[in-house]
């Protein structure tokens, strides 16, 4: 079964923000907004839930810290203790200051890399993926709002979107399995 969506194009981020607020106030459902750059506050205006990426980042940092501690303990204390600069490596805690840079770096390394990978997975992005942009102009200077027509009157919805400042309105028949 095919569903109808409306693509409304805007040329200014302020107009887009106002339009998003108006559309939501009328209880239409916004499927997605495509923008050439991040628009500050758009996520809140669209009513998207707050990102949990920061929490995952904290957990990855803790993993990195743990890996660093276990790794340095195995390498420098258990497996091959050495006497460096008059500081024999027989105790982790006594040699800890020397390991702090590694602990710091691995915390950052794990937090940063795993957070980026999580972001890609969550956004369904991977190499050679075909772009989901419905219109190439959204990579340059246009903003596209995709509104679910649902059971609404398409003509009425289109004229309402025109009043919000859209410069171009297209009605699209979308295949259900596209989602």
């Amino acid at each position, binding site marked *: 079964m095919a569903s109808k969506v409306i693509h409304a194009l805007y040329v200014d981020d302020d107009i887009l923000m106002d339009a998003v607020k108006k559309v939501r106030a009328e209880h239409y459902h916004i499927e997605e907004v495509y923008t050439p750059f991040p628009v500050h506050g758009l996520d809140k205006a669209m009513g998207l839930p707050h990102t949990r990426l*920061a929490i995952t980042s904290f957990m990855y940092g803790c993993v990195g810290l743990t890996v660093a501690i276990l790794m340095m303990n195995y390498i420098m204390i258990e497996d091959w203790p050495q006497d460096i*600069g008059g*500081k024999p490596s027989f105790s982790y805690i006594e040699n800890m*200051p*020397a390991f*702090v*840079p590694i602990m710091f770096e691995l915390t950052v390394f794990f937090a940063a890399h795993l957070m980026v990978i999580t972001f890609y997975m969550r956004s369904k992005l991977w190499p050679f993926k075909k772009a989901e942009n419905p219109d190439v102009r959204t990579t340059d200077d246009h903003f596209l709002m995709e509104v679910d027509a649902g059971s609404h009157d398409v003509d009425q919805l289109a004229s309402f979107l025109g009043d919000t400042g859209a410069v171009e309105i297209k009605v699209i028949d979308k295949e259900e399995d596209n989602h």
Partner: protein
Amino acid sequence: MYTLSNRLKLFSIILMVVGLVGLIVGFGQRPGSIQEVKEMMAAHDAHGGGHGNQGHSEEDAHGGDAHYEHVLHQLQNKPWASLYVAAFFFFMIALGVLAFYAIQFASQAGWSPVLFRVMEAITAYLVPGGIILFIVLALSGFHVNHLFVWADPEVVAHDALIQGKSGWLNSWGFIIRAAIFLGGWLLYRHFAVKYSRKQDEDTEGNKWYKKSFKISAGFLVFFIYTESMMSWDWIMSFDPHWFSTLFGWYVFASLFVSGITTIALISIYLKSKGYLEFVNNSHIHDLAKFMFGISIFWTYLWFSQFMLIWYSNIPEEVTYFITRIEDYKLPFFGMLVMNFIFPLLVLMNSDFKRVNWFVVMAGIVILCGHYIDVYNMIMPATVGESWFIGISEISAVSLFLGLFLFVVFRALTKAPLLPKGNPYIEESKHFHY
């Protein structure tokens, strides 16, 4: 316009009087002779048995009275050192705010102008605080007390290392430099506040704002050189054999985070009293981000200084940390918890930075932590192992806290709390994150 409530006025005056009386008692309690030290230590040893044995073995090693004379000098220094720590600590808060204020102008920050009057009021403490600090510095530099060993001609005569540094570390050089540093900072403070007030009356062409921008940029260049030299003179020279090349940065991080924390605390206090209605929780959020960030920066510098010295283990360098870890274990590691681990955990979450009581709690811990930081920098070289937080330490803090509150809140009444002429004031009012 803010009006100073009688309760706050009375509170600050009581703090000052109590502090002054306590400090006089502290000076009066100094032992006058070796005999008195022996009595004091005997009384102390009677309380703890284990400590007594250690004291006697030290006595033998030092050859009788030499040890007691050493302790006598440390105890005679103690009220002076606690006065110095408190005078410097409250002065450095105001100095940190002054640097922060200049950065806001030089970077043309749009979020912060609503907080300018709070910052200007805090920097008002630079005048009385600077004068008192200058007197204390002059007394120490001319060897009225025994805080600086390099100021003692007898010590210098037998010390080749200090002799080599006496081109820089001498009484007159010390006091002239102090006058230049303080004079420059007070001069900038005077004109910055004057231009800020003029800009309110005459916004035509932002003439006064442009002047503020220029002197702020000039001041920051002057400040970063003089602040670094100030840290060598006023703090590092307590241990004249020891040196650290990033000491200026380290002291800067400490005064910067203390200053920003104080801006946040005073803004939240004024908001709770119904003033500063134009300050929203995004401004508090930004200040808390600075508190968090500069705390991490402070730790980074602390660790950079510590790790290199610890690892290389060169005797004349590492003695600095050995005395601190052996004699000052609790304040030394306690300050790391208060200045790093606590702000890291409390202020990491974005939402917590908007909760006023969270910011206040973290701020009080940070300020106490940085007091202990200054304490750790000054006490080991002046009172050594004879340290304890006693009447003179608490009284000195009380005296300067009272003076600080009195001066800062009185300065707040001098001008409207909103600098309405600032060109960024509308942006700042609508600042939203």
